[in-house]
């Protein structure tokens, strides 16, 4: 029997090593091989006007070039439109690049752009609100498009760098009955090959791309790996070249690991507490200011985000062209907080806060609970899974506060409007933050960042004065890269494009 069991063990070991040895194929050293990217979640749709998730963009950019592009710092730069001008605050004229073709060989001209506009404001589109200011789009000549606006809205330029600017082939859209979810045809650097739901999206280099000089890998596989730990081990074991959204808790060990690098850059994604300024508990601006003053954001940044990010004073980060002015500064002053609560007659304030039920968010909620308890406030955490949390807070308005994120938008005015305007979906008070409407109007007169800045300064001050929300921390965009990857550049949105990336 001893011999028998030993023989069994040997056989098992042999079997294991045979299986381990066969197949063999790890990554090849070929510089023209496929780039493997681990994405956080599957595309909600590959049709730009039908998708719903911010995580879609990195999957869409390779297939669709946008009319306007943006720099790493989110300033507009030429995309499919090589230039633009603004004859008046209510008109935007785009000059298109000549000779651009879609992946099906169709020309990208003014007519195609107009078709895309009508599609984006038409039935089945998720992004009608983005283009609400636009009255009409017309083709002036073959390569000139003019947008007429109902009212001045300078955010249109960067809206055209988002989903609304992703141009689809009109012919393909017609052929697909208006829905390109599974048969995307754009004018981007890579054309669509295959989509296996929940597993992988494959694209390959488009030979007739207009910017033929740019560095583009021969193909990209976007592997869908939702679990953050699994993404990291996948990179470390050589299965991936790029992994999106490394959690701050994994970043340090990845930094120390061999063969991998970390891209750790700021982004506009903010961790914040949404508050209902019309609620009974948090309706008094003094109470909201007190809650804000009671938060030690430096400690929060260090303990909950492992120092990877920056303290948030307003809705937009510093080192951004629309950054809040120096007067907007979230101080930590528990004594002043207690005083304000006493003034408001709310020294024994108690309220519920919904928090997304993932371990990182709950950790933040617990720290907030403690910091608020220090000034006499009782906050009850209501952990909920994200869909239920959003539903309960934004639709049913069950609690006065919600700890979650805001992923940011290409244009600062979009963020201010969605969060703090009377009809912004993410504003549960249904009221404008006092003074904000006027401030944003000032930012809409021109599309030039330098001319818009004064309006945004005022907007930031209005939100700060009213404490319409509790900004906490801007978490960095942390991306893991294998040593083979060169030329990777992230941007402030945390939605990198893969043009310029090469495999060494």
């Amino acid at each position: 029997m001893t011999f028998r069991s030993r023989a069994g063990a040997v056989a098992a070991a042999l079997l294991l090593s045979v299986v381990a040895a066969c197949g063999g194929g790890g990554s090849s050293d070929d510089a023209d091989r496929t780039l493997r990217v681990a994405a956080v979640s599957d595309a909600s749709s590959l049709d730009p006007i039908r998708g719903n998730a911010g995580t879609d963009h990195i999957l869409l950019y390779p297939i669709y070039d946008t009319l306007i592009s943006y720099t790493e710092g989110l300033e507009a730069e030429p995309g499919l439109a090589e230039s633009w001008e603004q004859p008046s605050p209510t008109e935007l004229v785009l000059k298109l690049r000549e000779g651009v073709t879609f992946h099906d060989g169709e020309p990208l001209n003014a007519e195609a752009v107009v078709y895309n506009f009508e599609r984006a404001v038409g039935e089945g589109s998720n992004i009608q609100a983005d283009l609400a200011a636009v009255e009409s789009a017309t083709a002036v000549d073959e390569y000139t498009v003019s947008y007429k606006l109902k009212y001045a809205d300078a955010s249109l330029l960067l809206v055209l760098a988002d989903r609304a600017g992703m141009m689809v082939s009109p012919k393909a859209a017609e052929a697909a009955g208006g829905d390109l979810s599974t048969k995307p045809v754009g004018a981007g650097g890579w054309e669509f090959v295959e989509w296996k739901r929940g597993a992988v999206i494959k694209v390959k280099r488009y030979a007739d791309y207009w910017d033929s000089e740019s560095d583009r890998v021969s193909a990209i596989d976007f592997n869908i790996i939702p679990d953050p730990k699994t993404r990291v081990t996948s990179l470390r074991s050589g299965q991936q070249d790029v992994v999106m959204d490394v959690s701050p808790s994994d970043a340090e060990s990845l930094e120390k690991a061999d063969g991998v690098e970390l891209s750790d850059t700021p982004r506009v994604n903010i961790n914040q507490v949404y508050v209902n300024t019309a609620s009974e508990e948090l309706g008094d601006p003094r109470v909201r200011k007190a809650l804000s003053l009671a938060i030690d954001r430096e400690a929060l940044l260090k303990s909950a985000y492992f120092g990877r990010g920056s303290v948030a004073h307003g809705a937009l980060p510093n080192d951004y062209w629309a950054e809040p002015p120096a007067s907007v500064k979230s101080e930590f002053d528990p004594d002043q907080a207690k005083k304000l609560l006493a003034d408001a007659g709310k020294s024994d304030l108690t309220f519920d806060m919904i928090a997304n039920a993932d371990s990182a968010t709950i950790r933040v909620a617990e720290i907030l609970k403690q910091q608020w308890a220090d000034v006499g406030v009782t906050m009850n955490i209501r952990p909920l899974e994200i869909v239920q949390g959003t539903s309960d807070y934004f639709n049913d308005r069950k609690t006065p506060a919600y700890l979650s994120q805001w992923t940011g938008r290409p244009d600062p005015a979009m963020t201010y409007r969605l969060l703090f305007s009377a009809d912004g979906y993410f504003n549960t008070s249904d009221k404008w933050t006092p003074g904000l409407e006027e401030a944003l109007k000032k930012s809409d007169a021109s599309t030039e960042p330098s001319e818009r800045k004064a309006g945004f300064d005022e907007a930031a001050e209005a939100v700060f004065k009213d404490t319409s929300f509790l900004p906490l921390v801007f978490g960095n965009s942390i991306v893991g890269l294998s040593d083979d990857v060169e030329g990777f550049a992230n941007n402030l949105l945390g939605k990198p494009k893969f043009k310029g990336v090469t495999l060494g």
Partner: protein
Amino acid sequence: MRILRVVGTCLVAAIPTLILATLIVFMLQRLIPGDPAVAIAGEYATPENLERIREELGLNQPLIMQYLTWIGNAFTGDLGTSFQTGESITALVMQRLPLTALLTLMALLVAILVGLPTGVIAAQKVDTAFDRFLTTGATFGIAIPNFWLGMMLIIVFALNLGWFPGPGGVSLQDDPAGALRALVLPALALGLVGGAEICRQVRSAMVESLSTDYVRTHRAKGLSNRSIVWKHALKNSSLPFATIVGLQVSRLIGGAVVVEAVFGLSGIGSLAVEATNQRDYGVIQAVVFVAAVIVLLTNLIVDVSYRLLDPRIR
């Protein structure tokens, strides 16, 4: 002929179970809090978008009508279309089922290869240190969560030793050989726990068989130990063995949900998780339906095997 009749009876008996299972799931998933329209609109939620989506989904029909339509279509192989993507759910499930099926089969193989021999050996050495070592090990094995075991296997065999590929990027269709290799660690993570359970059950069944009168008679007439254990005693322990293996199948399918997440595999386990997060009712329903069919088929096979293994059962 007898077998055919048995199969027929079992199949007919399975239909009410199946219908009941789908009905329960259908009602239960409506209790998951959270509005599917919110999940579908995502970051682009506006009151108008939400209203439009609710209308499109037809969630305003009476529940019982929704269910009857669904079950009617399901029996003709049409599982409906996904809320989230508008695609055929049958195609979605068929694309992701093979990976889970292969994973479950490999895990079952691991469970049997580990559980059967260890159980038999432990039974022969009852109450020795070796037996205690094995049964304690098996108890630990049952207690270990498979996601933890999975992470440990990844760290040791993929990251440190590099014998197997790490998680992610497995495609059964594109690279079958690579996929087979990539499934070894997940199959171990999933199957070892089942192996521990099989070990314990086989051990107690064998202990009982080995203490019966006919075994004593065999020994008295000089049959070799090998023949007694592997031919006679084991055959008489085969009913509990078949039962536990049948039970393991449903365990493994359930466990696949977790193991697929740890290893970045896109089978129906991860499909169920995605669908739940997205409140994609049709897809959840379809996954449960498929899982229920597999479990019922397994029970059928177990039932039939009883009759083959033991002629006393009619």
